[in-house]
């Protein structure tokens, strides 16, 4: 029974993808979207039932479908494991996916590739389910690459758009952004593969249970290498510095994709990997601290770029990056369950935020510049409410989900005695509140800054708004389940509780964070709630430009990696391959040809000449014979 549920949860999205693919090249069919959504909902129900089962019985379900690769001593099965961690992920993924599928029926309404979109989207969910459900590292890698390809397909969904300059569109074009995402992820995947190799040659298996039970026998250096290699893999998927540029460019994809893949699910795969492999990371404190430090840095770094950005979706993308930093900070400090909790809560409110942004885009005819919006509150009540709720949750205002999860992470940093990290995370919380509400105010408050005579913003379809409501609800109430969640997942994950000392100071700590969060919102309110006042001096300052250009990192990559690589490739071809390697071969051939051509002159046709040559030859042979006879 439970086994069947596992397969239903896993393969319903696959069936949905195949079904939509059948109609991939035919014109828009609404029923494709409906059936895909129904199948996704089936998968969600199955996941929820499994979650209930795991919650009530405390058992995990382990099924092995069949053998995949078997060579030498290596055996990799298609095995699936449903335990506290994976079932959490499954439920979150299928819930957000179902919402996004229904949302897409409305959002992609006018797109002629409607059917194709659902095929890709469901294929993504299937890959993500493999990723989280697999019982071994190789299976995880299947999902890992699978979500990468689906992300490539979906970022480049509007592949017909032409490349433009970076000034016009920082992502150049959807197909460019898609390729960038794929290639950057591949860099990290190499790290991940190396991690797999290290584990295999030291343990002899890639099954989680075998690997984790063999860890105590491994040397410290092996563990460190494995942990670091796996984390490099996680850095790519979760877009950690310096592999972060692809995530903002990925906003070229349709907004439901941004909500599902680039906010709620795929980008959290890196965090999931660290949580899943927590036995390895628990044994490597240095690597774990590095993860925490990098996470904290990214949290701040990304938030700083969000402060000045004018692109609705990019602001949310930076915010995602920043929140992923928080999750890594928690995971790196050993609070795996808090990281997982923030992952889930973040999935809800960030997906909601993106879908809200999608509504705005829909209303504004794909305008993304928040400087050209304003006053949308009147026309879009529901969207305003949703985005407001999501932003409150993101800013960490009490009773909303983000307050509980983010606050726990910040407390963890304090509890571990890493006060520098703590301070940065608190500061970042303030920045988060500021940029979230800067966006909300600029979009919805004040006067309209668009041409009201041509553009008449309208609210999204009703069914779309209703479909978004579960996310809104969860963004509000998810925090109250924190205690239950802790007892649930810590059956598997190491528990993390604050020390006595922290416990005493908890009110103070919470108050400090709250002061920053509320301060950020207040600042945003003062500056932007009554419309936009451009500050030329500020916008031309060095810091502002630095932040607006993402610290010039994309330009740096372009100048120092992309272009030199292309130039070097060209040189390798024209100078080395053609002028050296091939020219040598042709040179040898020419030498032989020329020697033949040169000796052709001997062929005079005159018998007398031939006889002379013959005599020369005979004499030469005699001399050779004589010399060899003398030499013995």
């Amino acid at each position, binding site marked *: 029974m439970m086994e069947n549920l596992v397969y239903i949860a896993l393969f319903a999205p696959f069936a949905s993808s195949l079904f939509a693919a059948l109609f991939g090249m035919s014109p828009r069919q609404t029923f494709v979207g409906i059936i895909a959504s129904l199948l996704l909902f089936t998968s969600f129900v199955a996941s929820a039932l499994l979650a209930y089962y795991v919650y009530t019985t405390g058992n995990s379900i382990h099924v092995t479908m069949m053998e*995949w690769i078997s*060579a030498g001593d290596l055996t990799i099965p298609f095995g699936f494991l449903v335990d506290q961690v994976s079932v959490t992920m499954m439920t979150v993924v299928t819930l957000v996916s179902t919402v996004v599928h229904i949302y897409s029926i409305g959002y992609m309404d006018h797109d002629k590739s409607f059917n194709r979109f659902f095929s890709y989207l469901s294929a993504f969910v299937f890959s993500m389910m493999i990723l989280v459900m697999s019982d071994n590292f190789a299976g995880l890698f299947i999902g890992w690459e699978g979500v990468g390809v689906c992300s490539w397909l979906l970022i480049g969904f509007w592949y017909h758009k032409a490349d433009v300059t970076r000034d016009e569109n920082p992502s150049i*074009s959807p197909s460019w952004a898609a390729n960038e995402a794929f290639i950057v992820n591949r860099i990290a995947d*190499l790290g991940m593969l190396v991690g797999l*190799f290290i584990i295999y040659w030291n343990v002899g298996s890639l099954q989680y249970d075998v690997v984790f039970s063999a860890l105590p026998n491994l040397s410290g250096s092996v563990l460190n290498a494995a942990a670091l290699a796996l984390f490099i893999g996680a850095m790519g998927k979760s877009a950690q510095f310096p592999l972060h540029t692809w995530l903002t460019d990925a906003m070229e994809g349709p907004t439901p994709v941004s909500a599902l893949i680039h906010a709620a699910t795929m980008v959290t795969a890196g965090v999931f990997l660290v949580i899943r492999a927590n036995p390895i990371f628990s044994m490597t404190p240095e690597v774990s601290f590095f993860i925490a430090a990098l996470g904290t840095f990214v949290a701040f770094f990304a938030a700083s770029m969000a402060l000045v950005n004018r692109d609705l979706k990019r602001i949310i993308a930076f915010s995602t990056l920043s929140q992923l930093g928080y999750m890594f900070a928690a995971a790196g400090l050993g609070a795996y369950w808090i990281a997982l909790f923030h992952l889930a809560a973040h999935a809800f409110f960030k997906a909601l935020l993106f879908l809200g942004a999608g509504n705005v885009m829909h209303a504004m005819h794909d305008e993304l510049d928040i400087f050209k919006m304003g006053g949308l509150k009147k026309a879009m009540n529901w969207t305003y409410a949703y985005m407001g709720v999501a932003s409150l949750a993101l800013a960490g205002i009490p009773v909303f989900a983000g307050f509980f999860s983010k606050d726990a992470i910040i407390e963890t940093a304090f509890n571990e005695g890493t006060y520098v990290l703590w301070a940065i995370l608190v500061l970042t919380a303030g920045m988060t509140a500021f940029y979230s509400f800067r966006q909300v105010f600029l979009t919805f408050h004040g006067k309209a800054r668009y041409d009201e005579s041509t553009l008449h913003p309208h609210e999204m379809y009703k069914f779309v708004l209703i479909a978004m409501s579960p996310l809104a609800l969860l963004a509000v109430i998810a925090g109250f389940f924190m205690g239950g969640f802790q007892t649930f997942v810590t059956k598997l994950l190491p528990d993390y509780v604050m020390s006595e000392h922290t416990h005493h100071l908890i009110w103070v700590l919470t108050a400090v964070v709250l002061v920053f969060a509320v301060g950020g919102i207040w600042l945003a309110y003062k500056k932007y709630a009554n419309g936009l006042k451009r500050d030329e001096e500020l916008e031309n300052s060095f810091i502002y430009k630095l932040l607006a250009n993402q610290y010039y990192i994309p330009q740096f990559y372009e100048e120092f990696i992309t272009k030199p690589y292309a130039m070097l490739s060209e040189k390798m071809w024209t100078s080395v391959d053609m002028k050296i390697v091939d020219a040598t*071969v042709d040179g040898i051939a020419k030498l032989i040809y020329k020697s033949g051509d040169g000796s052709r002159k001997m062929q005079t046709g005159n018998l007398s000449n031939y006889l002379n040559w013959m005599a020369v030859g005979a004499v030469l042979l005699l001399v050779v014979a004589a010399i060899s006879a003398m030499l013995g």
Partner: protein
Amino acid sequence: MDNILSVLVFFPAIAGLLGFVVDKESARTYGITVAAIELFLSLWLWFSFDSANAGMQFVEMIPLIPDFGVSYYIGVDGISLFIIIMAALMTLIGMMSMSITKNIKNMIITLLFLEMTMIGVFVALDAIIFYLFWELSLVPMLYIIGAWGGPLRVYASIKFFLYTFAGSLIMLVGMLFMAYVYHNLTGVWSFAITDWYALVLPVDYQLWLFAAFFFGFAIKVPMFPFHTWLPYAHGQAPTIGSVILAAVLLKMGTYGFVRFSLPMFPDASVMMITPIAVISIIMIIYTAMVAYAQKDIKQVIAYSSVSHMGIIMLGIFAMNAEGISGSVFQMLSHGIVSGALFMLVGVIYDRRHTKLMSEFGGLASVMPKYAVIFGIMLMAAVGLPLTIGFVGEFLVLLGFYQVSPIMTILAGTSIIIGAIYMLAVYKKSFFGPVTNEANKTLKDLDAKETWSLVPLVLIVIWLGIYPKPVLEPIDNSVKAMLVFMDEKAITKEAKDMIKVAKSSQGGV
């Protein structure tokens, strides 16, 4: 049927001879029928093949020149079985998709002869028979490139012929010397490979012989820096020529390493791991970069072939079952994927008579089916899990990691730079707006093209999800070979380096 191998080898040739009397209009149907029967026979061979038996099966032996130990000696094991099936498959698919109309009868007959030589190489267990088929395979290919090729066809075909021929002559010297050594040590003449296996040679002899065989194989593979004939051959060859060349002929080189070099010269092979690994890594990285610089789609795929062959070479010299099995599997995977990619390039070439990427752009909007199949093959080429390309590449890198982590990481960059040039091709040809007027009216795949490509897509996915039926026989034979090499090795380094799988310890 005991003589199935002989039937497999000579059926296409006899059918090819009969092809001379076939009517010109029906030549194509005739060829496809013969190739289909041949594929059926090869599948039957697989069906009657005993997967658990790691040794040679269906062995036939007829003495030809008993005084010199030359005999018609053929057989098949897990390593060669699937390459034979792939050769039969790719010949059939290639014929089905062929768009050539000029001298079609000659082409069909040539292909059938080529099929004989290809299968002959992979079943031969006698060095002279092996050499015979090896050299004979050059002739039909020379003809295909020279007669149906592009503007530089004569240059390309002569370069192809002379280059590979020069290498195989050195190999022939090696074979003769090997037979001479065998005679000196045992007192009898023999060219049977299985007899040669039994010979334990001193290390210096092994090194010289390894070098002699190396030239023959390395030029065929082709290994850096002997690769420059390949882009010309591919660039000028007609589609069918490129398909067969990439899918099967290149595999002769890597197959030679597995069949000859490793079991005959285990100590020399172990000593040569580092140099060969270095060359392989240069092949992987350097040709991938050169591929990125190309303007012509076909040249990109030609150079990418060299890069992928580098992975195969690396796996062969991993000296463990994971690496070598992965490498043999990768031979099949590369055969099918690169064959399909060349066919796909042929599709667009037939329509536009150009292969320059700058002429295309936005093809995905005009030819969606074509774009989908190209996309699947591209993903298989960059080694996406659950496609055939991943299994081999993963096993090779996994296997070689045991030899050298650093070199594996360098070779592993192939998953990055492979994606770079492949995605660049896809972006330039398929994405973006349709700018060229000539592309706006292109027709999507027709029935003939679809039916020849879809089977390959199915195989790519089937063997990506469930490689076991293929991987298991390969793995059994490879494990047995490693046990044998380990017993035979005389130096301590070789004994240490050759890793016998735990599952095959305790006897063959």
